[in-house]
């Protein structure tokens, strides 16, 4: 039954439960039954999860447990559990995720579940199409209040959603953290977390693209948004190596803490220090402007000044284009490329993350640029981490915050935003602010004087933290062969001579992460004296994936072709053991059946159905049925369909007369698949049953001894004309005579004659006897013969009293003389039959003491057969017909 009705009862006006499905919620220690409804309100959708008692019939049977708004942060994906074999016909397991939460549900197998998922998917697609505007879900707020009532939820409800932790580190502490009071989260839709959710979907996609054929097929057949494009992308990604080759490019990376100064000298000695002009420049600054204005309004004239200084200081032997400038207060990153490379730069996105005061402000933090160069995705980060010698853990934390909070929008908005670490190449520059631990300032200066950077480096906090894998995991740094870049008296190469007398440190660093990267040079630039820091540069030789267009095109085409192939393989398909069925010697009211075996030889389960042909009222002729006419065949399974032929009184006349043959073509249709034609042929043995009286009167021989053409010809003769042959027609069909005579002689005193049914098998013998004349006397019991007589009358194409006279008979049913008058007007052979039969019935009534018949019973039975209505009879008509007939059962006085 439709359980959405129960859900509907719990909803407000204007909210509609579109569809509901009963499902199992997967918990850590088992499952619980739930009712899941898709609820719509002013074009916004949400999933409502209810616990329920028994089969939910009314709103009282369900208790709302959970609402999941279908927003951009929502996803539902089908998952196949690794420890379960994919079984066709098994329950559908789905994972519903919203922001950081997920739950797994098992939905019952079948089309209803499909329909449900399709509807949910459609709702989600609607949201995506509206992007960037997002649904508000104001209508859900009232439900939120309900949740806050303590105890309104069963304990199990709190267990069912496990929080997915953001940093992938804090598994334990979070397990109990989720309380269901926070089950509505419609508000925070476009917070950074959406990226993770989309990433899940993509991962799911990538994973399933490696799945079995049938899994993919199901995905292909799902009406999902751009799925095919996504598959193509995934495949392209997997084959990237085949159509790209590695080409080296030189990246110049620089970092400089300018301590709020304005540029006073050329930066050429720093930026133009390489022998050859680099291909790309990524130049980071910190403390560009230390003024309050810069801090509060993020506005500074220094931006222009330093940008100009950089532009002027680039290598003079090449032309460069500034691709991107990004700044957060005093942290600025400039990204230049050689003019000729500009066209290979794409998908440029810049983002900032503040980690300063309150963990948000921009006095500390990072700016970053994400871009594609040829086919490589690169992220360049410039960060200024927390200061002070003892704060190295704070610096570690800043790094983590930057990594987790930095998201780059992707061009294709259906794709999840990128994190820093998702880039295959990450270049990280900045004033990382790590100092030298456990050394006095004099010791440090001594070691520097001796040039013992190795000893010094062992005291470097960054090195120590990296060795402990507490920060910059996976990053590389080249050997440091230059003296610490901090802290100098501005305008000189002298160590800090202020009161604080800072211990020198390698604050300014350049790190990288990714394959095919070699550092050609890593140095500081002592002769730049603008600041209390010295600028640092690193020249990296980076292997970039460059696309071979020709191979790319070929690969792309291969993928499209293989997807086509896959899709074609996944078109539902069956094989039929037989395409042609022949039913020979079909007899009146004889059941014949043959079996059509469908074997699902395709890659997917399929649904089959016999479908109607155009301009035909049913999928097959009335004498044929297919059982079952529709159904489901699992992959590799087969199903037997019974094709049954049965000729009854309504189909017999046209088959007897040759107007119809036993011929039909069935169209077996597979949903989303092919159609198969199945030919049905047969030969029908004409029978006196279903043949007209006047034709039978022409037949002196049993009907089946006559050539078919003769029968067909006789059938087509008009009722009144007698045979063109000289032979005189019979007064009545001999078959009637045989049955009546048999009954007259044997059954006049038979108790309950015409009231007790005969045997089917005996009827068949009687029919064969009449049609073939094989026996002189009719076989079977009296009751069987009686029934055969009734069936005979019933099957007459034109009743004993022709349809055309039916109304007349009813109209005069009260007048004995008029009734008799009408009978005298019947066609001769019909009149003969009528008189013969009524005479016989009157004989029977003489023996009513034995056979327990009365005129009432006989009139009821025979009026219904001999005085048939061309249309449906009502009660009054029936009564009149009986009345009419009873005039003929009255014993005539001799």
């Amino acid at each position, binding site marked *: 039954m439709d359980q959405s009705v129960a859900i509907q009862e719990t909803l407000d006006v204007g909210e509609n439960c579109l569809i509901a499905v009963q499902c199992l919620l997967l918990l850590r220690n088992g499952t619980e039954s739930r009712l899941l409804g898709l609820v719509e309100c002013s074009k916004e959708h949400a999933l409502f999860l209810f616990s329920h008692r028994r089969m939910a019939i009314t709103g009282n049977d369900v208790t709302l447990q959970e609402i999941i708004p279908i927003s951009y942060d929502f996803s539902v994906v089908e998952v196949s559990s690794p420890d379960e074999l994919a079984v066709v016909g098994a329950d559908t397991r789905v994972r519903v995720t919203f922001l950081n939460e997920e739950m797994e549900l098992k939905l019952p197998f079948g089309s209803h579940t499909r329909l449900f998922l399709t509807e949910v998917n459609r709702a989600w697609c609607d949201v995506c199409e509206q992007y960037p505007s997002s649904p508000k879900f104001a209508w859900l707020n009232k439900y939120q209040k309900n949740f806050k009532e303590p105890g309104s939820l069963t304990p199990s409800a709190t267990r069912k959603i496990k929080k997915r932790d953001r940093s992938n580190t804090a598994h334990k502490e979070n397990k109990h953290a989720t309380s269901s009071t926070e089950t509505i989260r419609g508000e925070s839709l476009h917070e950074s977390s959406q990226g993770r959710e989309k990433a899940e979907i993509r991962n799911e996609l990538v994973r399933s693209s490696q799945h079995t054929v049938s899994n993919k097929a199901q995905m292909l057949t799902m009406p999902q*948004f751009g799925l095919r494009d996504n598959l193509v992308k995934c495949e392209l990604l997997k084959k990237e190596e085949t159509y790209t080759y590695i080409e080296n490019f030189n990246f110049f990376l620089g970092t400089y803490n300018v301590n709020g100064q304005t540029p006073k000298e050329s930066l050429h000695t720093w930026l133009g220090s390489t022998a050859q002009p680099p291909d790309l420049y990524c130049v980071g600054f910190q403390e560009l402007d230390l003024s309050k204005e810069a801090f509060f309004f993020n506005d500074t004239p220094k931006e222009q000044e330093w940008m100009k200084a950089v532009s002027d200081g680039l290598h003079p032997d090449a032309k460069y284009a500034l691709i991107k400038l990004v700044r957060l207060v005093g942290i600025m990153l400039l990204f230049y490329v050689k003019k000729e490379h500009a066209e290979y730069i794409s998908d440029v996105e810049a983002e900032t993350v503040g980690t300063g005061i309150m963990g948000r402000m921009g006095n500390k933090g990072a700016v970053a640029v994400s871009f594609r160069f040829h086919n490589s995705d690169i992220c360049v980060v410039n960060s200024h981490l927390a200061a002070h010698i003892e704060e190295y853990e704070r610096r570690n934390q800043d790094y983590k915050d930057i990594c987790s909070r930095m998201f780059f929008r992707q061009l294709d908005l259906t794709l999840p935003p990128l994190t820093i670490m998702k880039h295959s190449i990450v270049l990280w520059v900045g004033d990382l602010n790590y100092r030298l631990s456990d050394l006095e300032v004099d010791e440090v200066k001594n070691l520097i004087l001796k040039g013992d950077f190795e000893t010094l480096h062992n005291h470097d906090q960054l090195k120590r933290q990296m060795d402990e894998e507490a920060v910059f995991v996976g990053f590389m740094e080249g050997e440091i062969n230059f003296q610490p870049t901090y802290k100098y008296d501005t305008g000189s190469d002298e160590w800090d001579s202020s009161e604080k007398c800072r211990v020198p440190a390698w604050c300014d660093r350049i790190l990288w992460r990714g394959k095919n990267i070699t550092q050609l040079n890593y140095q500081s630039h002592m002769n730049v004296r603008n600041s209390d820091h010295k600028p640092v540069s690193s020249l990296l030789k980076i292997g970039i994936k460059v696309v071979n267009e020709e191979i790319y095109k070929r690969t792309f085409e291969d993928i*499209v072709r293989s997807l*086509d192939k896959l899709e074609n393989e996944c078109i539902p398909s069956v094989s039929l053991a037989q*395409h042609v069925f022949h039913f020979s010697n079909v007899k009146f009211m004889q059941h014949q059946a043959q079996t059509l075996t469908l074997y699902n030889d395709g890659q997917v389960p399929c649904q089959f159905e016999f479908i109607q*042909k155009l301009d035909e009222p049913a999928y097959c002729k009335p004498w044929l049925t297919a059982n079952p006419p529709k159904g489901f065949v699992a992959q590799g399974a087969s199903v037997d369909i019974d094709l049954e032929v049965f000729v009854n009184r309504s189909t017999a006349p046209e088959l007897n007369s040759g107007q119809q043959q036993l011929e039909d073509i069935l*169209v*077996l249709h597979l949903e989303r698949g092919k*159609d198969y*034609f199945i030919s049905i042929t047969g030969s029908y043995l004409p029978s006196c049953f279903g043949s007209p009286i006047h034709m039978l009167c022409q037949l002196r021989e049993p009907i089946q001894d006559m050539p078919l053409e003769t029968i067909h010809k006789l059938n087509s003769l008009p009722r009144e004309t007698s045979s063109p042959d000289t032979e005189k027609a019979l007064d009545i069909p001999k078959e009637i005579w045989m049955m009546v005579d048999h009954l007259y002689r044997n059954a006049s005193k038979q108790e309950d004659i015409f009231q007790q049914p005969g045997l089917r098998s005996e009827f068949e013998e009687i029919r064969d006897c009449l049609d073939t004349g094989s026996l002189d006397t009719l076989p079977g019991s009296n009751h069987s013969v009686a029934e055969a007589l009734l069936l005979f009358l019933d099957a007459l194409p034109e009743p004993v009293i022709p349809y055309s006279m039916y109304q007349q008979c009813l109209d005069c049913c009260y007048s004995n003389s008029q009734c008799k008058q009408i009978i005298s007007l019947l066609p001769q052979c019909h009149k003969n039959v009528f008189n013969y039969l009524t005479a016989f019935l009157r004989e029977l009534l003489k023996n009513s003491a034995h056979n327990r018949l009365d005129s009432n019973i006989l009139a009821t039975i025979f009026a219904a057969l001999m005085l048939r209505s061309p249309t449906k009879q009502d009660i009054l008509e029936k009564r009149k017909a009986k009345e009419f007939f009873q005039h003929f059962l009255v014993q005539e006085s001799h």
Partner: protein
Amino acid sequence: MAKQYDVLFRLLLLGDSGVGKTCLLCRFTDNAFHPSHISTIGVDFKMKTLEIDGIKVRIQIWDTAGQERYQTITKQYYRRAQGIFLVYDITSERSFQHIMKWASDVDEYAPEKVQKVLIGNKSDEEHKRQVATEQGNKLAKAYGMDFFETSAFTNHNITESFTRLAELVLQANKKDLDLLRVSINDQLDLSALEEEAGVCDGSSNAQKTCWC
């Protein structure tokens, strides 16, 4: 980057039994050739993705039973096609003569805008040829169709003829396409458009019968 979108439409293969409709389809979609002749008893289809003028075109190619006994039923599929191949066998005069009958059926049952291409298949069997190329050309001209002699066996003119028909269909539906190209950026289903149009006439769609 231009937003991608799809066009989906249906092509139908018609012609006498044994002229090689199924082989043409297999060659085009799977690049395979199976010489043994198994009559198609029903309506089969395969998908193929092409790029024409930068438009991603997904075509569903329907392969029909050619045997005469099934023709009353296969006719009912015509109205769903945007393009039709009339196929004969160059080694069979009879199959060529029947093209007239196929063409008149198409006129009667297929949508007015349907695009047609005449195919003389089995061009590799030159020694058994009964229909001269010129005859094919003439007939095609008379009907205003493009004409190709093809061989599924040697892969001669297969891609060309399918691409040509796809182009013709695209051109014939260009107006709809251009209209929709502006407003819609996801899948455009020409076949769906046809069906929507079909609903209006009301007669044939009264029953919920699915032919797809």
